[in-house]
């Protein structure tokens, strides 16, 4: 084995006083060799982004390296001056980030921003710079590279922006590329393409890649070696196949156990129940008046969608961003007013109700939201948040609070948590509060809109289990909206695939996953990262740790 390009030795990164722990990284050692992709895996807060920051010496203010060494080709970067560090950044170690929209300066063109690499580190002429930039854009396979050169970030799609970021990072053929969650913000099909691109470029240039991610699917897709971080400490490191299939550390095992397999459980044995919710030719078109343009734009967010949710069943709606799945959910809850179509709930057409009447019927359909931070009013106590619904519908306060207490137990929260404010809870706990709030009204239908997408994988597994359990226990009918096919496979007995506001395929989960009919469904399934890897079944030893 060759000597490592980048070696991190006993790195300790100190957090400012008052943080939840004193050290972001507690003596981590890593070695990255030429031509390999090392995946640094960990849940949020594990310190994996601090690693990137420490290497680039771009840590947040007040966070500093306490001890250790970071060697690039043997030379200790920690001892380098700021000017020397500037020559390293971009030229020898380049970096790509999670959110390509915000990581690019919105006010300057793509070509300008890539060209800046050359202008900063080389003495190339303007013409040469442009030529090299163009070549880079071609290499990352941006459609119409010449136009992309002049384009501004907002004019490109998310995938194209990430390609531009990659082009920028690779401009000076760096020895090391640090990729910090580069595909997390992307749709699954785009993610697949970007991963393939990184893999391909890394092969061609022999770059060493430090790939930071939380997603074991992605890891399975791309990693040569894997390092697992937990609370700032390295718990396990080894070749990809070893770690993925034979994890040694209990924490790694928990993480891998929580990754849902892509295959759906064996087809439901339950007989198909009659539908409780029937959506009939529902439509919604967004219009926006243009400021500078005369007309305005029209987007058909939901176009003639018809669906049926069997009583006690779970209908998954999957699709990429912009497919209209969230709009559909909001139409069903009447958070948006449909342009046409009907929403029959047990024979009652919700679409026809006035706003006032809808408020009375609101309890029948409830929703669990995506963002555990934004979905709870930060100024209300948890108990109040849950009791609010019943109180609105006439339940006396004492009784509502009592019901809230029961619900807290039901969703696995301690009743003394009722007096706390949302920010005092973890993300998973907040989702439980959101669930309790939705259940407090004893709804007939529960809509979960990306309810587990923002959670770490271990917490995600717990919430999914809770959801399935409650569905069965309370006889709920569940409309489950997600972009994550693994999650959908886990919980749904029927699947509807949406694209551009239209349902392209609908059927039993096992059938949709096993024998997809529509091209798009097939493409979607083919893009799921790590689809070739089936997480090993491990003895359940450490679950419910959240």
């Amino acid at each position, binding site marked *: 084995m060759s000597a490592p390009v980048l070696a991190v030795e006993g790195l300790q990164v100190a957090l400012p006083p008052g943080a939840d722990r004193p050290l972001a990284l507690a003596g981590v050692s890593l070695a990255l060799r030429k031509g390999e992709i090392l995946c640094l895996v960990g849940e949020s807060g594990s310190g994996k982004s601090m690693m990137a920051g420490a290497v680039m010496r771009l840590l947040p203010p007040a966070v500093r390296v306490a001890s250790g060494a970071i060697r690039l080709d043997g030379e200790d970067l920690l001892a380098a001056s700021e000017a020397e560090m500037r020559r390293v950044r971009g030229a020898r170690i380049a970096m790509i980030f999670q959110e390509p929209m915000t990581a690019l300066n919105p006010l300057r063109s793509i070509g300008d921003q890539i060209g800046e690499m050359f202008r900063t580190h080389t003495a190339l002429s303007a013409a040469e710079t442009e030529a090299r930039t163009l070549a880079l854009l071609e290499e990352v396979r941006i459609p119409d590279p010449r136009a992309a050169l002049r384009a501004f970030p907002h004019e490109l799609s998310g995938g194209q922006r990430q390609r531009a970021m990659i082009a920028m990072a690779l401009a000076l053929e760096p020895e090391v590329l640090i990729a910090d969650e580069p595909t997390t913000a992307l749709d699954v099909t785009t993610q697949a393409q970007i991963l393939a691109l990184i893999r391909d470029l890394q092969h061609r240039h022999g770059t060493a890649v430090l790939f930071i991610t939380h997603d074991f699917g992605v890891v399975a897709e791309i990693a040569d070696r894997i390092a697992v971080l937990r609370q700032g400490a390295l718990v396990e490191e080894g070749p990809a196949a070893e770690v993925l299939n034979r994890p040694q550390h209990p924490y790694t095992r928990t993480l891998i156990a929580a990754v849902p397999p892509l295959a759906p459980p064996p087809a439901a044995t339950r007989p198909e129940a009659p539908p409780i919710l029937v959506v009939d030719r529902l439509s919604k078109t967004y219009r926006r008046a243009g400021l500078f343009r005369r007309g305005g734009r029209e987007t058909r967010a939901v176009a003639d969608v018809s669906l049926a949710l069997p009583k006690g069943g779970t209908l998954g709606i999957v699709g990429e961003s912009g497919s209209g799945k969230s709009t559909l959910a909001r139409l069903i809850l009447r958070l948006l007013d449909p342009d046409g179509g009907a929403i029959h709930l047990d024979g009652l057409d919700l679409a026809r109700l006035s706003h006032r009447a809808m408020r009375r019927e*609101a309890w029948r359909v409830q929703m669990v939201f995506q963002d555990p931070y934004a979905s709870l009013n930060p100024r209300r106590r948890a108990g109040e948040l849950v009791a609010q619904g019943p109180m609105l519908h006439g339940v006396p306060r004492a009784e509502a609070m009592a019901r809230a207490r029961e619900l807290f137990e039901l969703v696995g929260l301690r009743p003394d948590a009722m007096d706390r404010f949302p920010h005092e809870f973890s993300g998973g706990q907040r989702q439980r509060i959101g669930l309790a709030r939705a259940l407090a009204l004893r709804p007939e239908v529960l809509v979960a809109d990306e309810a587990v997408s923002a959670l770490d994988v271990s917490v995600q597994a717990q919430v999914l289990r809770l959801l399935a359990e409650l569905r069965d226990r309370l006889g709920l009918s569940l409309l489950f909206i997600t972009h994550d096919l693994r999650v959908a496979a886990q919980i749904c007995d029927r699947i509807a695939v949406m694209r551009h506001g239209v349902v392209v395929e609908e059927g039993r989960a096992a059938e949709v996953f096993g024998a997809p009919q529509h091209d798009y469904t097939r493409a979607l399934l083919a893009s799921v990262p790590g689809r070739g890897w089936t997480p090993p079944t491990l003895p359940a030893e450490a679950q419910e740790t959240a």
Partner: protein
Amino acid sequence: MQAFRRYLRNPAAVLGLLLLLLVIGVALAAPLLYPEDPLDLAGRPLQWPGANPRFPLGTDPSGRDIAAQVFHGARVTLLIGAVATLVSLGIGILAGALAGYHGGWVDDALMRVTEAFQILPSFLLLLVLVAVFGSDLATVTLAIGLVSWPATARLTRAEFLSLRSREFVQACRTLGMGDARIIFREILPNALPPVIVYAGVVMATAILLESALAFLNLSDPNVASWGNLIGAGRGVLRTQWYVSAIPGVAILVAVLAVSLVGQGLNDALNPRLKAAA
């Protein structure tokens, strides 16, 4: 409480708070130290500060004790500032909340009116209002409030626009909550912090507007406001400059206090600066 601790770590903000407490203290002490009407003839006009031990800050062109007027003026200034700010915030929050929450034609109509008020130079409108309705204390205060709400309305509207699409608001709607309740009980408390921070600016502006009115001799002469004292000193500016200078410093201190507290609150409540502070 974390915000409060962050606030106390900022020396400028603490200074502001101390100055504000000083102004409030002066206002509270006024009736104790100067139980007489500060507008009464106290002695020979235009005595220099210190010239007569009875008048540590001297007398104004009407022979009134400047110290008494400064103390009582603190009450008036705080009153004008506070009430005008409340009026301005009241109108601004209501208009901004309705516009931001409802959108559509409500937003259009309310923003038209806001725009009208913003296009019209506010001081000009203030002059017109005072010319039309006279310049007693209540009118002046109301008029100042009335001309300074558009910025609050825009700020509130922007907050509401971003908050109304937040999931917790949608959650309230899915629970079947009515609009009024969502606006005032759910969104407003969350939209308030930046508005409260902005209240410092509104109050500072209100105090300055009153002093400018007094400078043009259009404020209420029956109260001992600092602005009136400046206006009274205008004629003797070149010889007895202290008449205008003393209330000028008082205004400066009050406005500085209010602004520093506002800015301190802003820094304390703004999580972005957390790391830097």
